[in-house]
């Protein structure tokens, strides 16, 4: 009887360890995140997907830091933007995040006199990191943006 319970306990401990073992950030589909943001947020402008190389140029990044990216840009009439990055690693993600912050600052400088109403969107856009992933969404619906991004992170 004792031996039986000891065996059961051992199995239970193994099961627990297996269930709780995986705490690392799972792979995130950057395309899925970007597409879901584009479809769920009601943007004021027409948003279009842009080429990876154009995104990298826009953000001053290169393939040394970025493994994958998916981005949507507006026509230029608004500051709306989506950019989802998979960096090479967590260290590179810091570089990518810094580039995203610079992008926001550049947009603020550009829109301040050009279209002051867009400054509201640029005041506190959604900019998050999770492991090697960096998420940027500029819109006037941060609540939805946060929900969508969080659903992929958790």
């Amino acid at each position, binding site marked *: *009887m*004792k031996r039986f*319970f*000891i065996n*059961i*306990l051992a199995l*239970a*401990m193994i*099961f*627990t*360890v*297996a*269930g*709780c073992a*995986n705490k690392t950030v*799972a792979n*995130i*589909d950057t*395309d*899925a995140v970007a*597409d*879901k943001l*584009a*479809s769920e947020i*009601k*943007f*004021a*402008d*027409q*948003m*279009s*997907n*842009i080429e990876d190389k*154009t995104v990298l140029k*826009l953000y*001053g990044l290169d393939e040394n830091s970025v493994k994958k990216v*998916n981005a*949507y*840009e507006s*026509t*230029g*009439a*608004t500051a709306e933007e989506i950019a989802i990055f998979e960096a090479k690693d967590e260290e590179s993600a810091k570089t990518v995040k810094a580039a995203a912050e610079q992008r926001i600052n*550049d947009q603020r400088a*550009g*829109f*301040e*006199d*050009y*279209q*002051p*109403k*867009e400054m509201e969107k640029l005041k506190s856009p959604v900019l998050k990191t999770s492991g090697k992933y960096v998420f940027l969404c500029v819109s*006037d619906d941060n609540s939805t943006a946060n929900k969508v991004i969080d*659903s*992929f992170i*958790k």
Partner: protein
Amino acid sequence: MRKGRRYRRKIINRTAMIVVLICTVSLVVVGAMGAVHEMDRVIAKESVPAQSKTENKICSSEKSESIASSKGSVEQKENHKKKPPENSTPAKNNSSPPKTNSKPQKVSSDNYFDDAVFIGDSRTEGLRNYDGLGNATYYAAKGLMVNTALTKPVVNLNGKKVTITDALKQKKFNKVYIMLGLNELGWSSFQTFINDYGKLIDEVKKCEPQSKIYVQSILPVSKEKSQSNKTYTNRNINRYNEELVKLAQKKDVIYLEVNKAVSDSEGNLPKDASNDGIHLNSVYCQKWCEYLKVHK
């Protein structure tokens, strides 16, 4: 006595078994919860369908704005104009037609625009985003005008912002495309616009003496935009373009009628080309690109 000890031992054993049982059940429950949570996350990821990268998301909204209502553009217009009345210098009267593109022939090389730079305002920024022009370079900024093109540091070069002319001095291009004029439609002095544009062309020539310079016509606005205000009208745009033709001729540069690539039969920007009647969407930027590929 022995029976008492046996009895105590029995109780202890039973208690120990109950404790072990409770621990076992707790551990099993915790482990199961962790596994279920992991499965939920995997299922949630897999349920979002991947969409094509080329899909164009078009969202209409009541919140669309136009640059005609932008305080910024109005302020720039007002700040600029304390200049004296228009000079009476006549435009050069030349009976030969303006230098436009020669026989249209689509560029065969994907690298044709690698040595090209595009100078312009927010519309050129839009072209940058949706271009099919290979590795073209863009020196463009929102609200850029013919005077600020020479003075405003808008180009990010080696981590530092410099003016367009400073950037041109540091990097050589064989083709320079310019599109400016939309933000200057409200200038009180039309001749000042032409003079400043001429100065810009002269500076570009100094920086890039071997390059071919292309003056692109100002693209039209939509009919609705044109009819909704007195400044950003296609009538004004056409007037400016007529003078740009003469300027290009005077400066011996090439004039490109890119407006034809995106206009409808009445010379307006079609309704489906833009959200605000001014900034082109990706489809119409591609039409603009196709024109540039053919006319060189």
